[in-house]
């Protein structure tokens, strides 16, 4: 570690001395997991806000009037498929197959772009029919919650793009593997949040 040149192997060996193996990757993954848990609390707050405001229509449209379940079903399917394609990317990474890893990451990113596009379309049509976030407290809560999730997915897509560049330049070295594992947790975490969104916002919404 005394030399200034970058050497991932040295870096990792130095870490391995400091940390027990069971801590895994020098605690990076656990640290990222703790971040995800704090992110879960942000979403919990947004869910709580939506739950409290979800019947405050202010004379405006109710969920039944504006939510299109077929569109939500398509979006849910896209996100679910992107979860398994990211899983395949991780399996390719563990087999040290660089091109397969990059290929599955591209597929995952395309799914993510599809998801965000459908969501943008939904938001645009809601605003166009006068059901924008300023219409009622219910819609403010809806746009805040679903929009925050969509923003996370967008950041995940950008991160996949960054990882594709990193993989192209440096391949599957230890640090890139670590980053891909963090991104894996991030991506699957967003899918878990979406389960809550489609269940409590959309499905239970149209039943109200």
């Amino acid at each position: 570690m005394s030399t200034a040149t970058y050497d991932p192997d040295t870096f990792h060996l130095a870490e391995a001395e400091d940390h027990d193996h069971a801590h895994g990757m020098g605690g990076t993954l656990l640290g990222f997991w703790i971040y995800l848990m704090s992110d879960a609390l942000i979403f919990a707050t947004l869910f709580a806000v939506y739950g409290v405001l979800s019947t405050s229509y202010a004379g405006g449209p109710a969920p039944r009037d504006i939510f299109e379940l077929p569109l939500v079903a398509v979006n849910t399917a896209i996100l679910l498929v992107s979860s398994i394609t990211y899983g395949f990317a991780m399996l390719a990474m563990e087999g040290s197959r660089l091109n397969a890893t990059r290929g599955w990451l591209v597929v995952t990113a395309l799914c993510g772009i599809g998801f965000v596009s459908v969501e943008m379309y939904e938001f645009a049509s809601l605003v166009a029919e006068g059901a924008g976030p300023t219409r009622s407290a219910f819609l403010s809560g809806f746009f805040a919650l679903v929009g925050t999730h969509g923003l996370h997915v967008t950041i995940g897509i950008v991160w996949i793009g960054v990882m594709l560049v990193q993989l192209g330049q440096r391949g599957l070295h230890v640090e890139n593997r670590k980053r891909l594992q963090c991104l894996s947790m991030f991506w699957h975490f967003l899918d878990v949040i979406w389960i809550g969104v489609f269940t409590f916002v959309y499905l239970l919404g149209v039943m109200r």
Partner: protein
Amino acid sequence: MSAPSTHAAPDDAVHSHGDTHGHGSRRGYLIGFGLSAILTAIPFWLVMTGVLQNRQATVLIVVGLAIVQILVHTVAFLHVNTKAENGWTLMAMVFTGVLVAITICGSLWIMYHLNGNMMPMDAGAM
């Protein structure tokens, strides 16, 4: 990456990390995907067709399936188990789960009663 001998050890280390983190196998991912596809399809089918006349039962089933699906994703995709990171990921998740439950249930409970007390006509609830 220089000579093969130098990165044999880190590669081993990576694989042993992989084991402690319990990365899924192809089979594990496919089972998780199959389960969550079913667990997603059923609630959408129930709500979109309205096959169950009973609204209460539909709500309970939809919420129950969502909880099961979250657990499936946590195990199959996020690989949370008792061994990963010496159990700290699981510990952190359980703790977060408690906080999430308190935040959501607490807010709904308090605001529901607050709304009830704000109703000018509803003197009985005061």
